[in-house]
């Protein structure tokens, strides 16, 4: 019996050693296993992050490309508008040459030299003012086009975020059409040459007053007509843009644009 107990106690001690050894082995191998699993998951996570980063970069690259495209288009349009104004002004000056020569001939008959010089200066000043204001309206249209370009970038970003931008794109097209109409109206005004016709020296003041009124009337009509309409058209686009939910959110990698607006 004693011998049996001795054998049993030895076996038990051996079992305890085996148990502890197995535990240590398990802890060690589980640790290794967990480390490998952790490494794999970390790699997967980094891969996912890189994929998302790439997608985000793609969206931004598209936005950048759109911005460059819009910038080029704007520069081309501006150059065209500038050349167009210069051409119509030259043509108008050619056409008004006879009327201006007639004014110059007639003004020479004015005896008062001071009045004569003032009248000559005024005639030039009227046309200079028309040029200044038509240039100003051209600049206004350029700025409105800049704003419209910014809006288009924002639309592209909203589209990249999966927002519905169909309605705002329609208003953008309307605003673009309004800009074209406004540029035409500016060209028409730029082509006008203001010449003064007067019967006699004592009617010079009334004649200039009438031409000044005409210039004011024409420029006001342009400002309150085509230019104001265009500005309102851009304002309408901004209002439509604001209706888009979270429109100011920058693009994320969750969605990509299905198409780009032109």
């Amino acid at each position, binding site marked *: 019996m004693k011998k*049996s107990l001795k054998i049993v106690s030895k076996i038990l001690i051996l079992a305890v050693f085996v148990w502890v050894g197995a535990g240590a082995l398990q802890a060690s191998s589980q640790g290794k296993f967990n480390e490998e699993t952790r490494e794999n998951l970390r790699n997967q996570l980094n891969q996912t992050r890189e994929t998302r980063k790439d997608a985000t970069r793609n969206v931004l690259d598209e936005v950048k490309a759109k911005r460059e495209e819009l910038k080029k288009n704007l520069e081309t349009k501006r150059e065209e508008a500038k050349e167009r104004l210069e051409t119509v002004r030259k043509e108008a000056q050619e056409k008004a040459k006879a009327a201006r020569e007639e004014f110059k001939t007639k003004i020479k008959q004015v005896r008062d030299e001071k*009045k004569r010089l003032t009248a000559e200066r005024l005639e030039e000043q009227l046309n200079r*003012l028309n040029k200044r204001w038509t240039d100003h309206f051209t600049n206004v249209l350029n700025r409105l086009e800049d704003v419209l370009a910014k809006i288009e970038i924002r639309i592209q970003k909203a589209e990249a975020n999966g927002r519905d931008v169909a309605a705002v794109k329609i208003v953008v097209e309307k605003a673009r059409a309004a800009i074209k109409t406004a540029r035409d109206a500016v060209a028409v005004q730029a082509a006008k040459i203001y010449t003064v016709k007067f019967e006699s020296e004592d009617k010079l003041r009334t004649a200039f007053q009438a031409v000044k009124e005409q210039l004011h009337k024409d420029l006001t009509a342009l*400002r309150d007509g085509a230019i104001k309409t265009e500005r309102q058209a851009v*304002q309408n686009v901004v209002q439509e843009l604001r209706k888009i939910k979270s429109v100011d959110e920058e693009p994320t990698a969750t969605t990509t644009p299905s198409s780009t607006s032109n």
Partner: protein
Amino acid sequence: MKPQYQKGNAIIWITIVVILVLVAVGLWWWFSQPIAGPAVTEPLTSTDIQKDLDATDTGVSLGGDTTANIQKDLDAIDTGADLKGDLDRELDADINSL
């Protein structure tokens, strides 16, 4: 002596069986444990992506084309409020002197 020896044999076998059962239970417990993965301390929230986005050198301004900025740009455009004043200043004195 013989019966004692038999009794001792039985105890040895019972002990071996018990140990084997315990080892089996231990192995079963070991393999039934769920694998613990690494703790995800950096979830990919939209804020994290935005941070990545901001850090990316794309040359794209991220703040210039918000609706508030667009509205500011639009408000800053002077379509020609002082048209009459400008014409009056530039012409009236000379016209009145005629």
